[in-house]
């Protein structure tokens, strides 16, 4: 059976019919907040239940509770605060109880019912969420750039966001129906922000071996410079699935959500989100959602011990490497051979080869995938 939504009910905050028309008209008269791409994506994710049980941006009690306890104030696991930052002007002009229009690219996309406006300490936030206050960390850097107040309250979406990858946009309601129609009872979800190499394929297929279906769900949206562009990731996966996966056992769709690079906390967040899509299992990688050397390689595994009530089973699959003696992709648990036989797939090495226009060897990346990636003059985010 697919997972129940986090908190028991799939949230839907979408205006329709006359109510929507009325709100669209009224939005022009309301105070206005312009959203970044990431915040607009958060709005849509709330509205479509990706962030169930959240019905809007966090109020102060929930915000403090998430920061301190990694749980909402009702004790439900929640590790990454979903917050909307506003400036001094907003605090001066808007009162609690007001309605404000949330704009993206000059169009109203949602109405926010302002429950609370409160201040936050960005350094404390960085310390708790990212375990560092170093502005060299991309998540910390973004935090320090945000405005000085947070506004919390429920929202309702009045307009869908434009999605360049519409063909691959599925919401939790849709994936839940999809999994049921396919007769999948055990679904392993895979989160990614990379083009697939052989290590990823090994991990995914290891999970698929003892589940009914594999749900590959890459993040699209803001990523740090040096990461692969969204289109490259999608095209690379299209090639991999076409040539190497049993189609009836794989579902591929994209999720517009910003990477926070918050390591262990973000790993739990990624699991909760995939639970809402209906997944029963979640693959937690080595240094999941990490960046640089801010987190230990398996720190994201340890944090799951604190959540016996998560409602989705983490799958800890060890890092895969090619062993010349075994003659295939293996991991430390199943390969007895010494290091000299092992070829590790390093993301950095792979990026370097691609930048130089060199086709990675087949034990690192499938040739069909490599061809797709190399067909882009510049496959990286800058």
């Amino acid at each position, binding site marked *: 059976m697919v997972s129940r939504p986090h908190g028991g009910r799939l949230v839907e905050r979408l205006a329709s019919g006359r109510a929507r028309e009325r709100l669209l008209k009224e939005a022009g008269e309301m105070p206005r907040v312009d959203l970044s791409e990431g915040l607009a994506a958060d709005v849509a994710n709330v509205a479509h239940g990706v962030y169930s049980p959240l019905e809007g941006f966090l109020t102060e009690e929930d915000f403090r509770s998430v920061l301190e306890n990694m749980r909402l104030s009702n004790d439900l696991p929640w590790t990454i605060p979903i917050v909307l930052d506003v400036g001094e002007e907003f605090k001066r002009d808007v009162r609690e109880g007001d309605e404000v229009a949330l704009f993206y690219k000059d169009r109203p996309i949602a109405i926010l019912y302002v429950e609370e406006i409160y201040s936050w300490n960005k350094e404390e936030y960085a310390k708790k969420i990212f375990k560092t206050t170093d502005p060299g960390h991309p998540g910390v850097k973004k935090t320090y750039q945000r405005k000085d107040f947070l506004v919390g309250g429920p929202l309702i979406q009045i307009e869908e966001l434009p999605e360049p990858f519409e063909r691959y946009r599925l919401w939790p309601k849709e994936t839940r*129906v999809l999994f049921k129609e396919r007769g999948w009872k055990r679904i392993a979800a895979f989160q990614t922000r990379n083009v697939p190499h052989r290590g990823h394929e090994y991990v995914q297929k290891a999970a698929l071996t003892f589940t009914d279906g594999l749900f590959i769900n890459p993040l699209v949206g803001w990523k740090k410079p040096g990461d692969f562009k969204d289109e490259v990731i999608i095209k690379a996966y299209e090639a991999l699935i076409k040539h190497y996966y049993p189609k009836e056992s794989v579902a591929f769709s994209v999720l517009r959500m910003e990477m926070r690079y918050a390591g262990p906390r973000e790993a739990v967040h990624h699991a909760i989100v995939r639970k809402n899509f209906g997944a029963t299992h979640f693959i937690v990688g080595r240094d999941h959602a990490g960046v640089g050397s801010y987190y230990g390689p398996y720190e994201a595994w340890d944090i799951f011990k604190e959540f*016996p009530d998560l409602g989705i089973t983490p799958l800890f699959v060890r890092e895969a490497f090619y062993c010349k003696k075994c003659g295939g992709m293996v991991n430390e648990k199943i390969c007895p051979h010494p290091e000299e036989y092992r070829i590790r797939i390093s993301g950095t090495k792979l990026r370097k080869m691609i930048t130089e226009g060199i086709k990675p060897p087949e034990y690192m990346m499938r040739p069909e995938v490599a061809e797709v990636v190399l067909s882009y003059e510049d496959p990286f985010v800058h």
Partner: protein
Amino acid sequence: MEWSEIRVPKTLYSRLSEVAKAMGFEDPNTLAIHLLREALAALEEELAAEGISEDERKEIIERLKGLGYL
């Protein structure tokens, strides 16, 4: 975090203490919280409602077919 108290039989408390010690939990209270959260989550799962109407399901199936998922 704010706290509330619940009462358990002394015999159960002794068992909690022994298991907590053996499993490396900080104290019996920490183990009790861990077990309660796990058990409650399972019960809450059973109580949860699906929330998709038959008409909606049909509409979604059509979209999924159109996109090639089904």
